[in-house]
């Protein structure tokens, strides 16, 4: 494959006529990414929050299945191939073996290396035991082309809630599964992982770009729906000394982005269903980052609307997110070197926003 950047033609990135036909239906953002020297770029696809939900026997909720199947199929069309695929957590709805197995089976169609983040819907039935058997450790780090990547299990909570509060594991799972359930408990990274993170980062140079993957936001947006990490400030303090830090999180089923000090925050979409922005709940105050230009209000009559997946490009240590939205124009949130913050490449200016981005 040519590495000449602008000399690359679109046809070089698709392998067969059939794939070309499908790629024609995909947002252009998927092919734009091939520009630049491939050996310097890191690119990865990000699929998250599929919430595979078991009904009975071999039946699963069709709607959620289709979301994950579509994201997997489209990710496989990416060319050049991404360096890896991340799954951002909440593969399952209630953490059962049938759900995790069924989700893993759909995910097995992905080509290339796949890494996983733990979500609360995967965790609170058996505290991650079966998930770990399928996907490996719950927190870890790896290095690729000069970038240090960290994966955290950010959806743990107070031990008393986890171990002493509920008569059964099923009830514990069900209580945490309800987003707006007042019996839930705030997410946190916890002492054990923060000690690990500190020692993991101690061997990383401050100029090395750091990318952290978590399920919950690692910032505080709205506690009522756990768009929240209780020890976010303590985690942020460990990350602030680095020149370029990006946190990519799932859980919120919507586009969010923010910058706190040196740390840039980006959320990813769900493949299952979208969530309202917290400001549309009239009874509580939320702290949606001012930087965020919301995604369009979802049209529920198109069941994949406001769901999707992401292609993420890490060039020069900055992370650019390309949101593949099925019934809307795709969005791109990229680091703006002039303003020094992540911005939507089309809608950031208040003048360029459109009516569907108003949530109430």
């Amino acid at each position: 494959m040519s590495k000449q950047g602008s000399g690359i033609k679109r046809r070089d990135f698709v392998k067969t006529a059939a794939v070309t036909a499908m790629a024609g239906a995909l947002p252009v953002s998927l092919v734009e990414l091939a520009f630049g020297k491939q050996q310097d770029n890191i690119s990865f696809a990000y699929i998250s929050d599929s919430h595979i939900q078991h009904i009975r026997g071999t039946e699963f909720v069709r709607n959620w299945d289709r979301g994950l199947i579509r994201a997997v199929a489209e990710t496989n069309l990416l060319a050049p191939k991404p360096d890896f695929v991340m799954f951002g957590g909440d593969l399952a709805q209630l953490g059962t073996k049938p759900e995790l197995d069924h989700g893993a089976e759909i995910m097995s169609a992905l080509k290339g290396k796949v890494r996983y983040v733990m979500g609360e819907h995967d965790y609170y039935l058996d505290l991650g035991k079966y998930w770990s058997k399928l996907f490996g450790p719950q927190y870890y780090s790896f290095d690729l082309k000069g970038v240090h990547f960290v994966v955290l299990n950010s959806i743990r909570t107070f031990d008393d809630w986890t171990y002493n509060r509920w008569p059964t594991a099923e009830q514990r799972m069900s209580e945490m599964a309800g987003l707006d359930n007042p019996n839930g408990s705030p997410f946190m990274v916890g002492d054990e992982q923060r000690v690990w993170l500190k020692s993991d980062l101690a061997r990383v140079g401050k100029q090395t770009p750091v990318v952290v993957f978590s399920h919950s936001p690692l910032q505080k947006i709205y506690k009522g729906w756990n768009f929240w990490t209780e020890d976010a400030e303590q985690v942020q303090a460990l990350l602030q000394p680095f020149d370029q830090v990006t946190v990519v999180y799932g859980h919120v089923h919507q586009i969010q982005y923010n910058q706190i000090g040196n740390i840039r925050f980006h959320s990813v979409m769900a493949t299952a269903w979208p969530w309202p922005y917290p400001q549309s709940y009239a009874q509580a105050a939320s702290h949606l980052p001012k930087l965020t230009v919301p995604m369009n209000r979802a049209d529920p009559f198109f069941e994949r609307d406001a769901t999707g997946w992401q292609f993420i490009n890490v060039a020069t240590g900055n992370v650019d997110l390309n949101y593949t939205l099925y019934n809307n124009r795709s969005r791109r949130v990229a680091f703006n070197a002039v303003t020094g913050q992540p911005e939507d490449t089309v809608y950031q200016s208040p003048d360029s926003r459109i009516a569907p981005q108003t949530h109430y």
Partner: protein
Amino acid sequence: MNTTRKMPAVVALFAVLLMSGGPLRADEFSEKDLQRWQQQFQDTVQTGRALWTSGTDLGTNGVACAQCHPNAANTHPETYPKFQKQIGRVVRLWETINWCIRNPLEGKALAADDPKMVALEAYVTWERRGVALDPGKH
């Protein structure tokens, strides 16, 4: 008119007034009445909340309303009746709720006056309390 014949009725009326705790007329109500009416409403809201978060009471596939609409957010009860472009006419909130019951929940639509539908509307509207009516708004 014979006053002796009226006496039993007057006595009965006094007895009723004494039993109800005060000389109330039909257009008067007490604090106790208000509390009882509010309680009736709140019980219905609670029934609605239970239905909203249930994977088994409305649909057939385990999906609950609350999965997509935490705290009934993004339901906008204050905007109904309104033109629902996907249905092609002006609808009321219960018709949109039924659309959700039939589609994402794969269940059977409820009658407009089904106690379950009344409870769902009570819950959705309660979560939106304080927001000004804005019928027709998209």
